[in-house]
């Protein structure tokens, strides 16, 4: 049975069509990467839309620490920032955290797998933006949060729900872009 010429041409055009579709897809992905909408190395946190898991951690050098019950209903959206004295990117974001607190944002810190004296020294050297500090020496609470590195920052809204997780040091781009938008949305 004969196949018409046009049908043949269409068949031979399939590879081109597939390539065009693929190209469109890649282009879209690249544009989104440029706009910081997509990061192939970042993980979405399963905590988003939920409350932080149950925990109760001691404080630093005799301080009070805090638990998940303290995060049930913050007066304003706040950040929980995981940090460590041995973490170099944490030093990089220290200035940014400082700036954020000066502009009215509340940040609570959790010290991850660290020693009390080095942590205290770190805070003395780089400034202490944290209203309250807890220590997770074993790292088990971090695992329950789904933390996989430091620094990590979680945005918690007024109802105690986690709305955003950022893995890595907070940069001006991220703060002015994503964080600002979210703070406006959830205030």
């Amino acid at each position: 049975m004969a196949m018409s010429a046009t049908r043949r041409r269409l068949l031979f055009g399939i590879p081109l069509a597939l390539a065009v579709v693929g190209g469109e897809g890649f282009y879209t992905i690249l544009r989104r990467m440029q706009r910081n909408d997509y990061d192939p190395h970042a993980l979405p946190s399963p905590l988003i839309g939920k409350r932080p898991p149950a925990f109760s951690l001691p404080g630093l050098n005799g301080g009070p620490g805090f638990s998940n019950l303290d995060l049930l209903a913050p007066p304003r959206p706040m950040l929980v920032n995981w940090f460590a004295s041995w973490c170099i990117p944490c030093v990089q974001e220290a200035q940014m955290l400082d700036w954020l607190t000066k502009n009215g944002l509340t940040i609570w810190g959790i010290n991850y797998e660290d020693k009390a004296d080095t942590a205290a020294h770190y805070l003395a050297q780089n400034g202490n933006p944290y209203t309250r500090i807890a220590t997770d020496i074993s790292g088990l609470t971090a695992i329950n949060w789904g933390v996989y590195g430091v620094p990590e920052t979680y945005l918690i809204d007024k109802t105690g729900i986690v709305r955003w997780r950022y893995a890595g040091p907070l940069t001006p781009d991220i703060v002015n872009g994503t964080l600002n938008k979210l703070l406006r949305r959830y205030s």
Partner: protein
Amino acid sequence: MKRVLLFLLAFLPALAQAQMVTRDGVTLTQTQETRAEAIGDQLRCLVCQNESIEGSSATLAKQLRIIIRQHVVEGDSNKSIMQFMVQRYGIFVLLKPPFTPLTYLLYATPPLALIIGLLIFWVARRIRVTPPAPLSAEDAKRLDELLQ
């Protein structure tokens, strides 16, 4: 006495499996260790991101290995341990994605690729044996004239 010993001998293979090993500070039986390794091989190390947590030397991988072994010793099923990990890290932590509507296309690719390949072969054979189109009346007349 001999019968008792022979009876006990039957348990030797089981005893071999019951031999204890220590891995990352957790002591468990060989069977349990094998099960834990199989689970670990299915989970992605999030720090190195292209190794499983069994093979990775990252601290987080070690902590997760310890947690897996503790759960295995307590008798938790493979499914619940995987759930534990997914609850905390998302489905990204699974090296083999779960079979849900989202991944139907992915899992369908092997049979689909074969079928499409064979289809193209079959279609291509039909294209090849196309006879030329019959001549129109005008062309047939021209051909006659040329042949004369």
